[in-house]
């Protein structure tokens, strides 16, 4: 579709429309924003990709709040925004679009702007020891200063009734995993309510993005969520400049390694040790290829603005191709044997069932969404890099249980290998890209989106009048998907929770930022 036509379709004429590459911004009066968002979301069925704010008070522009909607299939983003001058509140859209809830709470916690009409506007990510009147993403907040310790009480939701008791789990766990606190209210073994308290790995990433030099910003984006180093930095680099080519290979290697790992862990969490050990072994083979191709097992230091810093020679490419074939057979055998275990399938089937309606309302993204039949994949919806030149289908399952999430992964392993094969064959003509210097457009907004192995990663980047980046909003898929974990765990027995949690395998670091 033509850009003009898109603007015509989605945005009313009287609004101040500005085109910036694949981003169409529109200045909407505050009182109309709820109607505009409802129209885009319900009438035009656009996806809410992220919702974030900027502090432009120094330029006399007040605060701005951006509502990023994606147009699937077009790689175009419609971004209505509102301006709050001398005001610290904005109308909440959560009552209509539930998926906005987390974003609005984050704006409230980090910018101190009140979402009026939000049903549950509690603090998010920042803990009780953080002063209530200090907002870290405002420009006048100094990130180097240690704030005074506050001591606000934290209230968990309570379930009352005969025989109901609470189990606190974490933030320190028995295994080597990221920290998070889970509060279960249970009746016997059955989970009545699960409340997750996160934020233990809050690192001030978005604040850091504002101060670090450009090159270091790329390195920082690799560290948002360690297991998705490459795709995070890919999304960030795309936001700054368009990329093409080799990045597909690395992005798929990352997906492969993590899917192997998760498939193994889901099986070993049911006690099926055969699948567990083979998952770990397959992952290790991919990790060794990462090391060989990129010099880093987690593909760090590969992305740069303007291209990737590592080249793959045809010789190495052929070896990878041959090894992929072996990997395919290997994986196929492991899955065949595992599928024959009725005790394994019994544990997976019906466990941690996520209702499709709940998933839709929360805007669940990525593989958790595909496991309930939500047909979204940024590689197809927003074809970045060279994905539009490759043949592959979206992996779909319909049940929304642990088995579905496992099978989405299994299918994606196969499609991922097919993608790598295609891109390796196409790369034969060998174009080498070198990372270049980037000059950024002033007063601009840009969005980078890339499908990490969990789901789509969205970066929203804003530049000031001299073309330096003043705000980077990071949206990891975990930020959305954490909100439905409690729904999936409800009515399951406590011993099944680790399995359910592992089938989502969300990032704490990417959520806490």
């Amino acid at each position, binding site marked *: 579709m033509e850009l003009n036509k898109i603007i015509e379709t989605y945005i009313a004429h009287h609004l101040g429309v500005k085109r910036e590459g694949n981003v169409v911004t529109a200045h909407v009066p505050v009182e109309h924003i709820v109607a505009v968002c409802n129209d885009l979301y319900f009438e035009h069925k656009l996806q809410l990709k992220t919702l974030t704010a900027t502090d432009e008070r120094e330029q006399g522009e007040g605060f701005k709040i951006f509502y990023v909607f994606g147009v699937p299939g077009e790689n175009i983003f419609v971004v209505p925004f509102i301006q709050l001058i001398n005001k610290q509140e904005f109308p909440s859209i959560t009552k209509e679009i539930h998926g906005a809830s987390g974003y609005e709470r984050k704006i409230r916690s980090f910018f101190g702007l009140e979402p009026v009409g939000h049903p549950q506007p509690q603090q998010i990510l920042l803990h009780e020891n953080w002063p209530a009147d200090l907002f870290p993403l405002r420009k006048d907040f100094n990130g180097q200063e240690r704030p005074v310790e506050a001591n606000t009480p934290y209230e968990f939701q309570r379930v009352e009734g005969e025989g109901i008791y609470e189990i606190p789990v974490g933030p320190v*766990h028995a295994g080597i995993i990221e920290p998070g606190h889970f509060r279960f209210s249970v009746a016997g073994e059955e989970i009545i309510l699960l409340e997750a308290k996160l934020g233990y790995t809050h690192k001030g990433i978005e604040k850091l993005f504002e101060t670090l030099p450009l090159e270091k910003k790329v390195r920082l984006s690799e560290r948002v969520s360690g297991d998705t180093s490459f795709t995070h930095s890919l999304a960030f680099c795309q936001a700054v400049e368009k990329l093409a080519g080799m990045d597909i290979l690395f992005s798929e290697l990352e997906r492969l390694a993590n899917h192997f790992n998760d498939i193994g862990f889901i099986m070993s969490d049911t*006690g099926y*040790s055969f699948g567990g050990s083979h998952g770990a072994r397959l992952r290790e083979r991919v990790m060794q290829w990462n090391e060989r191709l990129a010099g880093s097992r987690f593909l760090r230091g590969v992305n740069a603005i303007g291209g990737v810093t590592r080249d793959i020679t045809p010789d190495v490419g052929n070896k990878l191709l041959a090894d992929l074939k072996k990997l395919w057979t290997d994986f196929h055998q492991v899955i065949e044997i595992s599928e024959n275990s009725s005790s394994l399938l019994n544990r997976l089937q019906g466990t941690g069932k996520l209702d499709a309606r709940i998933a839709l309302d929360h805007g669940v993204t990525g593989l958790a969404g595909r496991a309930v039949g939500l047909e979204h994949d940024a590689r197809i919806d927003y074809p970045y890099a060279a994905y539009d030149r490759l043949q592959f289908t979206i992996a779909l399952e319909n049940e929304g249980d642990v088995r579905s999430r496992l099978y989405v992964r299994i299918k994606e392993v196969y499609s991922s290998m097919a993608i790598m094969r295609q891109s390796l064959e196409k790369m034969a003509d060998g174009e080498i890209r070198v990372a270049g210097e980037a000059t950024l457009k002033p007063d601009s907004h840009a969005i980078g989106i890339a499908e990490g192995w969990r789901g789509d990663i969205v970066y929203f980047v804003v530049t000031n009048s001299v073309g330096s980046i003043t705000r980077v909003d990071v949206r990891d898929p975990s930020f959305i998907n954490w909100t439905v974990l409690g729904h999936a765990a409800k009515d399951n*027995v406590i011993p099944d929770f*680790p399995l359910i949690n592992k089938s989502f395998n969300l990032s704490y670091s990417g959520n806490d930022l």
Partner: protein
Amino acid sequence: MKSALIWTIQIILIPVLSPLFTGIIRKIKAGFQNRVGAKITQPYYDFWKLFQKDEVISQDASWVFKFAPYIIFAVTIMIGASVPLFTSIFSFNLLSDLLVVVYLIALATFFLALAGMDVGSPFGGFASSREMTMAALTEGGLISSLLALALAAHSTNLFSMVHSASSLSIISFPPVLLAFFAFLIAMLSETAHFPFDNPATHLELTMIHEAMILEYSGKRLALMEWAAANKFLIFLALGVNMFFPWGLTASSESTAILTALFLFLLKVLILCLLVAVLESSMAKFRFFRLPDLLLMSFILSVIAIILMI
């Protein structure tokens, strides 16, 4: 003099060999997972290490928490000394009674569950609740499976049961086999093995046995784990000697004793292999499916009893 020596072997055999069999199971399981695995003697080193370590005991711990490891360990030694292992010389031991042994095991379970709840950690609490649920459901299958043999022997003395079982005709072998399967299910439940519990898990929410001893450290943890290993070997010994009662010797000749010991180890090793294969080839059952399995154990033993009569 000789009888004193045999007595000593009988008493120390279980605690001395039990860590070895834990190690053997781990080694076999590692093999199934394409891993090399630790040496089969690793549990000895682990216990030795734990005995040297300092302990951390919660302020809220009462005497139950502090004494439970000694009680449980002592109970397993006592049972180990009174069950048929390789010799039938001590058959008139009052402790060698089916009901005494089963309820001594229950006594250990009772203190284990109390210790799990004692410090008030939520994991210990729900692990104890699960353990007691399982213990109550397992008891029926365990007693009835052995009762089938007791009925044939007209005695609840374990040695008399072994004696009568070894003289049973080939026709009564099917009920013995049924009773053995009932016993096997009960054994897996009692000794925290698949599909009931995962002895190797680190997931605090799914554990049963491991969550009860989560608060222990140092020498008390070593005692707890050693007691668990003892219990496992006791069950292996009961399984192989009660249902496949060949090789026990009544003589005190050293060659006879050595042959009996060798046969005993061989039989236990075979059962060990069976458990390891079972653990490697299946997933853990969902918690609420476990009662079905235990019910099956009970039904199998009831059928065995009916066939025996």
